[in-house]
């Protein structure tokens, strides 16, 4: 299979090169202009359709969980529902609030969507040419560019000229930024094995490193848990969706948006969901590889099957996201931030430290390791069979209980710290201060408007 993979390079296929009538080693236009444009158009088109149908799937999945049917009328089984929704949003009146900052108001959803879509270019949708741009800092690029999406949020809240939108935007963005840190830290454990930030490189590494090529989730169960929780927090999905819940006072950053601008925010959120699921699949679940894929000999078929496998894995994760949303209640905002800062980030850090310890202990004896569970092969360190077992066992049996116990001990006192009592005390002190001030100031009885 390695031979097959080397023939499916990341380069443009022959028919594109012949299209531009260039020659192979120097096919600039084909390599860097024509073929990427074709890929981009394809990916954007497919992903946007997927986003539209993700809303349909969300409604269907939520309906089936809730013992009802969901959209059934528009088209067979309601399959044309996203089309109807799209048309409805397009023909809605485009309202821009009078006092809103017009230029910023118009550009904010664009920033969100662009940030979400740019990331799609480095995701390995399949083997070989199914990646648009195989940068060797893929993971870093994804984390960096998805952070830009937060900017769209804040600008939207600010430019809406509504204090509730602003508060909602600030809360959303604070939450997103906090959970991004957790996301970044949780991946590092897996990256220690892969030794590369390139997305395709990580998938290739998992094929040799992990048991049967299944993925790093076996070695990094804590990393997976922290990553998935942080991904839910990053994309403002339940149970972390307080900033956009309808039963909350502050209606959120996209209150003042109507019609297609609102749809852009919606698309950005679902595209971010797809991106985080894709990153999880790439880093932890083996990407487009599945044991048995090597049996496919034809290069084009290989790539197509790999795309399908990737899609299935991402779909399973997205279903899990929807399942969580419709099952669990939502966290209050301070509980949400506490979870992000006091549990996810320390867990991520502890995961890095512990993974590092297990890794160093398992280095080959020649490089100073104690157990020698790894050996050099083609310039990379690959665990032996015993090494795989060692990593799995330490990951599940040792890392998780240690970190859980550590965090529970550290955070034990903070849950004893009764915020309600402290706030009641604050309120009481404020009243006393106010009364004293009024008495000194006016010299008359202070008016008490209730307790």
């Amino acid at each position, binding site marked *: 299979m390695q031979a097959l993979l080397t023939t499916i390079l990341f380069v443009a296929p022959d028919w594109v090169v012949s299209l531009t009538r260039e020659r192979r080693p120097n096919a600039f236009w084909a390599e860097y202009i024509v073929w990427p444009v074709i890929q981009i158009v394809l990916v954007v088109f497919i992903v946007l359709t997927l986003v539209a149908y993700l809303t349909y799937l969300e409604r269907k999945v939520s309906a089936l969980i809730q013992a009802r049917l969901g959209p059934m009328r528009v088209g067979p089984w309601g399959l044309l529902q996203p089309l109807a929704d799209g048309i409805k949003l397009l023909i809605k009146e485009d309202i821009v609030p009078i006092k809103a900052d017009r230029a910023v108001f118009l550009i904010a959803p664009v920033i969100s969507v662009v940030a979400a879509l740019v990331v799609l270019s480095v995701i390995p949708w399949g083997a070989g040419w199914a990646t648009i741009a195989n940068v060797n800092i893929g993971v870093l690029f994804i984390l960096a560019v998805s952070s830009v999406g937060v900017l769209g949020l804040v600008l939207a809240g600010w430019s809406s000229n509504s204090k509730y939108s602003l508060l909602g935007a600030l809360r959303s963005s604070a939450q997103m930024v906090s959970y991004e840190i957790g996301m970044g830290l949780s991946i590092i454990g897996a990256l220690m094995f892969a030794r590369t930030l390139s997305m395709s490189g990580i998938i290739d590494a998992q094929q040799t490193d992990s048991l049967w090529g299944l993925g790093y989730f076996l070695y990094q169960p804590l990393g997976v848990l922290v990553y998935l929780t942080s991904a839910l927090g990053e994309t403002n999905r339940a149970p972390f969706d307080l900033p956009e819940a309808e039963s909350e006072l502050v209606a959120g950053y996209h209150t003042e948006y109507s019609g297609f601008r609102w749809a852009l925010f919606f698309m950005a959120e679902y595209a971010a969901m797809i991106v985080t699921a894709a990153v999880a699949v790439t880093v932890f679940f083996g990407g487009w590889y599945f044991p048995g894929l090597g049996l496919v000999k034809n290069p084009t078929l290989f790539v197509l099957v790999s795309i399908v496998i990737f899609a299935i894995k991402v779909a399973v994760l997205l279903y899990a996201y929807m399942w969580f949303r419709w099952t669990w209640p939502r966290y209050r905002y301070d509980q949400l931030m506490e979870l992000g800062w006091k549990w996810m980030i320390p867990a991520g850090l502890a995961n890095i430290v512990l993974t590092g310890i297990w890794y160093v202990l398992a280095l080959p004896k020649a490089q100073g390791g104690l157990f020698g569970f790894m050996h050099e092969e083609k310039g990379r360190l690959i665990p032996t069979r015993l090494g795989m077992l060692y990593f799995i066992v330490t990951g599940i049996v040792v890392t998780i209980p240690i970190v859980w116990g550590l965090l529970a001990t550290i955070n034990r006192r903070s849950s004893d710290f*009764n915020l309600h009592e402290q706030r009641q005390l604050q309120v009481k002190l404020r009243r006393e201060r*106010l009364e004293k001030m009024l008495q000194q100031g006016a010299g008359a009885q202070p008016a008490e408007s*209730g307790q």
Partner: protein
Amino acid sequence: MQEQELTKPEETLFDAEEMVLNMGPQHPSTHGVLRVILKLDGETVIGLDCDIGFLHRGVEKIGEHDTYAMITPYWDRLDYVAAVSNDLCYVEGVEKLLQVEVPKRAEYLRVILTELQRIASHLLWLGTHAMDIGAVTVLLYCFREREEILKIFEDFIGARLTAHAFRIGGLWWDAYPEFEKRVRDFLKILPKRIDEYETLLNANRIWLQRTVGIGILSAEDAINMSLTGPPLRGSGVKYDVRKAQPYSAYSDFQFEIPVGENGDTYDRYLVRMEEMKQSAVIIEQALDGLPEGPVMAKVPKIIKPPVGDVYHSIEAPKGELGVYMVSDGTGKPYRMRIRPPSYINLQSLKRMAVGHLVADVVALIGTLDIVLGEVDR
């Protein structure tokens, strides 16, 4: 006006962070047309005021102008979520005035319908409370069960929601032949469903974080504020009108009164879940012991109670629903005063909410289980 007092300039002298927020009458979580004016410091509630009256329909005034029998349907519309039990309060009050003895079969059927209504009301409470806190699916499940009860009501009484079930002196119709079987079938599936809800919520760490320790009311506070119903029992006070002053046929049945310990939202949730199970127990006993006989007593066509007054209260799902009626010998009451449990329970919202965050106010309104029809009348 309360609102002006809350926003008086001196109140905001030092602290520019104080903000007055209006949780307006149209709001997905205020369970009706309730306006809550919050004074916030950041996200902490430091003052709260309720502005009610949006659903005031003058029911007590109507009670002075209509005949006794005509007033009964108005009582359905008070707590429109638990309509059947409202009727019981008024009808028994008039029967007390008239000194009429209701046949045993009617009493038992009344108990069955009222307890079914209690289960339906608590199901709706659970659905909306869970939805406010974020678990939307529970709403759909609860409505599925409530649908069964409403179907039983429709076949018996003729209406699902504001069912004018009881008449002065008994019931208008006897139970239809399949009534007992339908109710027993429903009682067979109910325990499994309640277990589903409890599995989903009781030990869920998110639910616990949102409800444990939120809105603690001490027993002393609860009694001082005249709370009744699950808010009172959640705070540890074992008072239930069905046991304290038994009415209808309740003294014939064995059932427990669930009581909470800490008086927080979680305890009130547990109390109501247990009440649903106890209602099922009562219905079983009533069905088992259902006597034969007439369902309507001999009541004159035109009801003219002797001069006097009466206070009668029942344990409605929301609390102690009471009627104080003064009769002056004519066919219309001189005064009909409704003791609305939701109105009186709503007082405690301020005491509970001050010091909590804005997101908790929503949970607290849900845990009090208010219905604005009762609050405003």
